[in-house]
């Protein structure tokens, strides 16, 4: 072979090798998640970093609570997306039915370790010792109080209520009626904001399921006590549940928010409120752990949020894993934060809001992701918001997860709401309402366990 020929041959080989790299098969992953501009931009960022994977996103659902209808239909038809965002209420039941791909081997291979994640949601991704998702973004609930309203009635605006008794005493001062006896201002409304009866049950040390997750225990005396306290609180400080509900019906739309417009002085609500409050510079407020029933008890809270799961019938588990691992981790967090801020700048301009847009970091369950966001974005926030943010982040360590609602989580959720309403509206005593709830959920739970497929 002449030298010339050899050169040609080598260069052809070279070309072939490189082109095969360049034209390596591109795998397309279908993903059901959010499709607002910041998320779509984040998926595109992923593609830039992973040229061999394309993300084809579509909206999981307009309503977070009803993501399942669409997914269920797709599962039944055998064309579920490769990966999807799942809500934690229903996650365990779906996982128990083999809807999701077991990612345990992937986590071992890529050294995705429990210690790198906040425990409550991490634990929730397991069923029968197998892991079926990575926890994505979550939330925590804390107490917010309106300092202006405190000042108006002569309460020290820097002192938040620490106990349920404090809530009562403060409400005594903060609740106001007009001359005709109509309520025009409330101190605290236990079931308003984003508290739900769950938080009072947990705060009082109640347990909603036994340790195996097979027995419903919402008639736990500590939970009965909590609901009973709510009922009495409504009757004594709010004119009853119905008066309060019809008062709140009046405030619809963000600018009308009763907390911001000085109509309700204290509320238990989620960390997302920090975003919302940031759009009202005149609002002076504080955040504190949810008040406990009695002095000396440990505060707690609860968290729901999203899980990233791979569907059991996917043809591309590895690529889907690469994607969800990225999305839940520091890289995804960085990309999302950057895109959210860009989007917010646009919103700020369009709505002509006062001040500069800020990024109050989302609560990632991945510790590294959280750290990256804190390092970069926290120093840019006002000192006050930094403190509040530290509180909601710290809560990730001592929070309860929605997955603790068990295999029949959504039934439990709906029945607890029904029981609370029945008690607040005096259809039943707190004890009877919770007993009825227990019976109904127990049945659903038994069914759910009978249908478990994961060994």
């Amino acid at each position: 072979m002449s030298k010339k020929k050899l050169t040609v041959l080598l260069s052809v080989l070279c070309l072939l090798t490189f082109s095969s790299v360049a034209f390596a098969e591109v795998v397309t992953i279908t993903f059901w998640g959010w499709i607002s501009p910041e998320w779509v931009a984040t998926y595109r960022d992923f593609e830039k970093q992973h040229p061999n994977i394309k993300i084809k996103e579509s909206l999981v659902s307009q309503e977070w609570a009803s993501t399942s209808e669409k997914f269920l239909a797709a599962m039944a038809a055998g064309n579920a997306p490769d990966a999807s965002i799942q809500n934690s209420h229903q996650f365990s039941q779906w996982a128990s039915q083999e809807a999701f791909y077991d990612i345990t081997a992937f986590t071992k291979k890529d050294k995705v370790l429990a210690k790198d994640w906040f425990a409550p949601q991490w634990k929730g991704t397991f069923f029968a010792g197998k892991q079926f998702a990575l926890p994505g973004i979550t939330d925590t609930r804390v107490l917010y109080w309106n300092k202006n309203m405190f000042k108006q009635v002569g309460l020290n605006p820097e002192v938040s209520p620490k106990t349920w008794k404090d809530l009562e005493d403060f409400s005594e001062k903060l609740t106001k009626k007009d001359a005709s006896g109509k309520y025009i201002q409330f101190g605290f409304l236990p079931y308003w904001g984003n508290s739900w009866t769950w938080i009072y049950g947990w705060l009082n040390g109640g347990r909603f399921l036994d340790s195996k997750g097979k027995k419903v225990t919402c008639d736990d005396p500590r939970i009965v006590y909590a609901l009973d306290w709510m009922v009495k609180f409504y009757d004594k400080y709010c004119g009853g549940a119905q008066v309060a509900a019809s008062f709140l019906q009046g405030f619809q739309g963000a600018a009308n928010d009763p907390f911001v417009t000085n109509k309700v002085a204290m509320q238990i609500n989620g960390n997302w409120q920090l975003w919302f409050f940031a759009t009202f510079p005149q609002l002076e407020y504080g955040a504190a752990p949810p008040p406990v029933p009695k002095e000396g008890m440990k505060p707690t809270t609860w968290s729901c949020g999203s899980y990233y799961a791979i569907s059991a019938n996917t043809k591309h588990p590895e690529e889907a894993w690469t994607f969800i691992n990225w999305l839940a981790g520091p890289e995804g967090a960085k990309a999302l934060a950057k895109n959210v801020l860009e989007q917010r700048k646009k919103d700020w301009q369009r709505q002509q809001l006062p001040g500069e847009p800020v990024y109050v970091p989302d609560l990632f369950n991945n510790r590294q992701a959280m750290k990256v966001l804190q390092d970069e974005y926290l120093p840019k926030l006002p000192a006050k918001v930094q403190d509040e943010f530290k509180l909601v982040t710290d809560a990730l360590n001592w929070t309860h997860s929605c997955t603790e609602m068990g295999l029949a989580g959504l039934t439990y959720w709906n029945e607890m709401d029904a029981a609370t309403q029945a008690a607040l509206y005096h259809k039943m005593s707190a004890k009877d309402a919770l007993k009825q709830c227990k019976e109904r959920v127990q049945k659903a739970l038994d069914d759910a366990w009978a249908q478990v497929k994961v060994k």
Partner: protein
Amino acid sequence: MKYSNLKKQEIFAFYTFISPWLIGFILFTGGPVIASLYFSLTNYTVLSKPEFIGFGNYSSLFKDPLFWTSLYNTIYYAVFFIPLGILIAFGLSILLNQNVKGLAIYRTVYYLPSIVPAVANAILWIWLLNPQWGLINTMLKMLGIEGPGWLTSEQWAKPGLILMSLWGVGSWIIIYLAGLQGVPEQLYEAAEVDGATKLQRFLYITIPLMTPTIFFTLVTGLIGAFQVFTQAYIMTNGGPVNSTLFYALYLFRNAFNYLKMGYASSMAWILFLIVLTLTLVQFKLANKWVFYE
């Protein structure tokens, strides 16, 4: 039977032309209907294979208090909505059948609500029923009445939703208008010649000749009322205290939220039987009051 060639061609053309609908109906409606009958006899989570349990779902349904609550709420809704709807639609259609100026505008105005999309309608009514600043309570206040909490009140949530549905009776008005215009003019003329008063003409000509139309709205209204869903799903989510947990909403929750498709299917079949029975009863009773020319 023997058909001429032309007739055969016509029959062939007929079935060819309706085949898209026919195939679609058999595949996408008929198929699921039959499948649901089978699923109603199974334990079916959709994620796993259905497991045959005979009439297990039906027997646990009758023991399920929420089933009875939802059935009660639905019957309550139907009992008030249908007669009121018929009265209002009939009354309005008579007014809209008069020869007044701007008739086309009135007709449009009264029909318009029924083409508002269900969700937009629901959002609008959340505001109208707002206890403090809602239009309805504001108007009641002018009359010196302290309005109820509507959607937040256990007693008033259902009436609130019924009120809202009454706003959308425009399609019935159209049907009644068509019926009214189908009443032969010469009957009125003959009656007038014989000295019948306006009221007599209405009672003895209009109403009897309208009975087939009323019957039609009664039957379709009943079927529709038993499927009431959207308002409760969007506006109240079944609350307060399950007072607006309608049958279809509870069925939907079982099917899609609780992964109990078999149970939900059995609910669907019970609903079908209820509606079928009521419809048959109505047809039976119709002989006594519906007047066909």
